[in-house]
């Protein structure tokens, strides 16, 4: 079992002939992911590392039957690429692209909600089920198979968290980067539900950051009693000055909302194990799970 993507997932790579697209298509394939085809308009008929390239998603779907699309298309064309995948019936889309205009994402979000599509990202590292499948740009070797499900708004911070969990002798069931933009396809609540259902996941880790209220919403959901498994959380950006965008378009404190303190408080009140020192993420999870005799 795994969450959202499986060993059997058939992956299409949009923007496969670009520098990043070709590099990561190969890296995913080497990890064991079934990369069945790629799309770049105008490059149909070519091959990238033995992977056939098509001009349109429609054609790629007809010939190779992918059920997940991984997108590396540049920002001005990325929203269109997502909608092209949706239009061809693909229900799970991972968009790596950083810098998509917000109003483009407003439209995309409306369509995917209506069509029941799961969009991971944009501006994210993708999703990995260690030892089974990697659909994204993360370094595979720092992950190990285990029982902690991680969801993170940031890429490198997802790696840091996974690395600490691996070093603490635990592993991960599935790790997902939900994206650093103001509008992303999935929120924590979606993944909390998935992880709660997943028999392989025994604990969940929320890696949040300042800005927006996704963490507060997650806290509210957990508080409602929908989640029985232990949840841990760290929020990055406690020392960030208000009004300054800290790299990610989504990481900005506006007025009183979006601060690390408000997120920590909401999570604490929901019974989440809050980890305030990012140096102790792995150790804390291992300790709590041992105490609760889960491992």
């Amino acid at each position, binding site marked *: 079992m795994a969450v959202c993507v499986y060993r059997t997932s058939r992956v299409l790579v949009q923007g496969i002939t670009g520098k990043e697209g070709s590099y990561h298509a190969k890296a995913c394939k080497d990890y064991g992911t079934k990369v069945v085809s790629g799309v770049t308009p105008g490059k149909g008929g070519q091959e990238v590392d033995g992977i056939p390239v098509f001009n349109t998603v429609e054609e790629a779907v007809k010939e190779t039957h992918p059920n997940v699309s991984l997108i590396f298309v540049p920002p001005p064309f990325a929203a269109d690429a997502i909608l092209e995948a949706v239009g061809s019936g693909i229900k799970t889309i991972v968009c790596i692209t950083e810098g998509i*205009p917000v109003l483009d994402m407003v439209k995309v979000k409306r369509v995917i909600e209506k069509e029941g599509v799961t969009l991971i990202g944009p501006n994210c590292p993708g999703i990995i089920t260690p030892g089974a499948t990697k659909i994204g740009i993360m370094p595979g070797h720092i992950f190990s198979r285990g029982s902690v499900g991680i969801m993170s708004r940031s890429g490198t911070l997802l790696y840091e968290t996974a690395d600490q969990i691996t070093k603490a002798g635990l592993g991960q069931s599935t790790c997902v980067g939900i994206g650093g933009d103001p509008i992303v396809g999935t929120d924590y609540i979606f993944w909390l539900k998935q992880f709660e259902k997943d028999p392989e996941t025994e604990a969940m880790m929320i890696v949040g950051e300042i800005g927006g209220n996704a963490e507060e919403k997650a806290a509210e959901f957990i508080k409602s009693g929908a989640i029985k498994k232990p949840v841990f959380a760290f929020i990055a950006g406690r020392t960030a000055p208000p009004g300054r965008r*800290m790299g990610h378009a989504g990481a900005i404190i506006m*007025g009183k909302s979006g601060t690390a303190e408000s997120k920590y408080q909401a999570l604490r009140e929901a019974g989440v194990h809050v980890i305030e020192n990012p140096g*102790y993420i792995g150790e804390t999870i291992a300790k709590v799970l041992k105490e609760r005799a889960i491992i």
Partner: protein
Amino acid sequence: MKLHEYQAKEVLANFGVPVPEGRVTYFPDEAWMVSMELGLPVVLKAQVLTGGRGKAGGVRIARTSDEVLQIAQELFGKKLVTKQTGPQGVVIRKLLVEKAADIDRELYFSILVDRTTSRPTVIASKRGGMSIEEVAEQYPEDIIKIPIDPVTGFLPYQIRRLKYDLDLMSLEKEAAKIFSALYKVFIEKDCSLLELNPLVVTKSGHLLAVDAKMDVDDNALYRRKEISRMRDITEADPDELEARFSGLNFIKLSGNIGCMVNGAGLAMTTMDIIKLAGGEPANFLDVGGEATPETIAKGFEIITRDPKVKAIFINIFGGIVRCDKVANGILQALKKVKVEIPVVIRLTGMNREEGMEILKKSGLKFYVANDLKEAAKMVAELANGKNNGNSGKKAQKQEEQQKEKKEK
């Protein structure tokens, strides 16, 4: 990207939204002449890219010709310190001179993308002229929120509702025209925020956008050239600008530990853990996915330019960017830029071993840490001048080993 008020009003006027008559000026005598042309009284408004101008004394009314000159002379070149600028403030270089409006009542109107619903949302209130956060706290029942479906746009019934709620039925047609024009501006200029506070009803019974704030989505500037050329970089921090030219994301802070990190989330976390270890970060710096020798050298250059910086912490988690490449980058950068303060390096992830090997062989002096908490402790101690702690010793030992290796 933030627009100046006079720029935002220019855009609004082009879409048929009424704004006060006025002009931006660059010198006191020019401001005075414009005021003569407009007729008194006039309002003189500092054009700075920061909020809280009014409270800081950057918006003044002048009723006589002498007053215009006196206030203009006082404001030009003055450092305006607001809640957002910090103590260093921002120098006033432009004044917008406007005919003072005959205000009957003040409304609030804004459009932004609500992150919770992922929809453009109109927020309006009968209580204009005060900050919307204050209204939300004191009179939450007076805030109107209308989410807009991007496919259908701002619909007639939604606009009608707004007119009733804001008591604008007497100027029904005018209000409808202005509200749909504002939504059009928001969409066609890729705004992330369009705020009129106040939008006033004049004594003669017309709507007038007395103040306008417009933020445009940076990611959309490529297709909004007319907005992009309005960019004013004179207020930006020169170091932050220079970093941006090199593709780095740099924000200056007030501490003494320089940070160089890949990835925004990890960069924020690095700042946080430095603080937890008793240190103070001097900056936020995300070198991004492409940490080349050039960008790393530029990072060192900008960080060490700040005389307050007493130690540097390089925290790289190799993913797309591989550690061996980063290590080579650091070495090449250190050849270009002389760094005389201690540097703590923590490299992990893709090709970590190769990266560490390269650093060890170099013979250059740095402190190597194995994980985040050790690194943070080490760099905080070094910056605070206490480097005899355990981790300090460990680092020195590693340094000695490096020297020995070099001698061999």
